């Protein structure tokens, strides 16, 4: 059992096309973030409503406590209806979830339906107990898909949406040169998965610092260098392992990646 198994952050679904889809599950922290944003939106909506009622009521005449009644109705709708209405009509997203990048879907990978949205949101009344969603968070750690009680009953889960765009070839700066063909052991060609790994490392420059990338590159670079025919591990290429990996990538993926 690896660390990745101990805390499940992914779940897999097999589609009718026999494809296994992986979804990244949203944990309590990101969901709380979304909840917080929604809370602000909800307070703002109520505040706006009260303001409008306060402006309109004196003009139309406040018959039979109508303004207070409407405010209470609106409060009811915001308290119980807000997440339900948004999740149903926005296919599983409230404004908060949209900003944080979360979506509620069925555990089968389908969009949620009317009863699902209603059930999972009414059951907030149980999840929220005793304080600050204590029960809900506890249950999230006990269920394999990080579901709170409402999710379990409705058969839903909250996933992180990744909108990834393909930016292949962008991981390499333009001025990287190919390794000179003459010096190489042409019998050896790095496996596609190795090249993919290098690409992944290089594309992470936003999250992995240059020094750390060098450290990681220093593990792979010597092994590659020897296979490519550089005689010793002290060859000048290896003083800057990250640049070396860039050149390897350029050498073996050149041509195809030129197109923008």
């Amino acid at each position, binding site marked *: 059992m690896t660390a990745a198994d101990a805390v499940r952050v992914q779940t897999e679904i097999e*589609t*009718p*096309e026999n*494809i296994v*889809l*992986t979804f990244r599950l949203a944990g309590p922290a990101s969901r709380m973030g979304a909840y917080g944003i929604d809370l602000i939106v909800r307070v703002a909506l109520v505040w706006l409503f009260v303001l409008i009622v306060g402006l309109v009521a004196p003009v139309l005449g406040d*018959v*039979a*406590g*109508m303004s*207070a*009644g*409407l405010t*209470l*109705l609106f*409060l*009811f709708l915001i*308290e*119980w209806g807000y997440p339900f209405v948004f999740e149903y*009509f926005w*296919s599983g997203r409230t404004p908060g979830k949209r900003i944080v990048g979360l979506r509620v*879907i069925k555990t089968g*990978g*389908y*969009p949620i*339906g*009317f*009863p699902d949205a*209603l*059930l999972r949101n*009414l*059951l*907030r*009344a*149980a999840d929220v*107990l005793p304080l600050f969603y204590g029960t809900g968070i506890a249950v999230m750690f006990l269920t394999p898909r990080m579901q709170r*009680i409402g999710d*379990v*009953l*409705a*058969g839903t889960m909250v996933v992180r*949406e*990744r*909108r*990834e765009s*393909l930016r*292949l070839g962008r991981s390499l700066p333009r001025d990287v040169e190919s390794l000179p063909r003459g010096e190489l052991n042409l019998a050896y060609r790095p496996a*596609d*998965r190795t*090249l*993919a*790994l290098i*690409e*992944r490392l290089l*594309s992470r420059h936003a999250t992995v610092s240059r020094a750390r990338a060098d450290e990681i590159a220093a593990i792979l670079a010597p092994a590659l260098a020897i296979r490519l025919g550089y005689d010793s591990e002290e060859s000048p290429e290896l003083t800057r392992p990250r640049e070396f990996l860039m050149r390897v990538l350029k050498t073996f*993926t050149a*041509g*195809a*990646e030129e*197109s923008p």
Partner: protein
Amino acid sequence: MKRARFLDRRRADWRKFEALLTRAERHRTPRFNGEEVQEFSRLFRAVCHDLATVRSRDWGGDIEGYLNDLVARGHNNFYRSPPARGRVVLEFFAGGFPRLLRENFAYFCVALALFVIPGVIAGTAVGHDPELATRVLPGSVLEQFDEMYARENDEGSRAEGMMTGFYVYNNVGIAFRCFATGILFGIGTVFFLVYNSIFFGAITAYIVEHGYSENFFSFVITHGSFELTAIVISGAAGLIIGHALVHPGQETRLRALLLRGRVGIQLAAGAGAMLVVAALIEAFWSPSPAPASMKFAVGGVCWFLVALYLALGGRSRANGVAAPDTGRGSP
């Protein structure tokens, strides 16, 4: 070079699929013409195939993540259920709701017992010793009730609008909580039912003791038909999910919760709707200056209608399915 060539060749299709998805996600039901639907399903299968290829050859996390995302979005759009229609809601209240309640009659009976028995006991106790009422209810609440029912109905401020809002906010909220907390092994539901039962029992006995019974009963009888029944129904819904958790029967616990949760939410939604009706009656009719005798008559009719609806609603259809051949020879 295989990987690079693969990317080059397939990327155009991925872009096309991405564009279709973006359009599909803009509306609740994708607005595609026939050709686009065909194109969508062709591309969807193609992208599925690509994802399988990338996975089997280990061609890198970025492409895999990208394609996984495309397939997930495609799956999401391809297999979405048809949007709910108003007719479904109408059918639910015309027949589905009372039918479902009758299918779960045992839960209704248990909830009813929990809602009646503690109240009767509390009421009897307060009837014997009115001082006990102060044990259950704070003095300020009692004074408020004193004032409310001592007064003749025709005066008083007209606040129907506000009271409607208040009753919806308060009562529907209580019913929803009563249902939802049933998942905590039924404890929450039982608590809500017993607590409210004792409250109502004590209050009723207290008011009767003080001789305001006509004002009180003429006030509560009409909306009580919807309100009290709905609270018992929401209790039944809570007991259903609690029971599924404690005793899932032949199913796994998770599956029992999914199945019974579906039943519970329908009953809770029905109870919520009944409480909205009750709130309107309670705000507009119950405090109206109509004579008590008339209120009792209307209230009686309402109780009768609620009972009739829950006992018989949606029966004709069930009978029609069960015995389709008996009606032969009808003109």
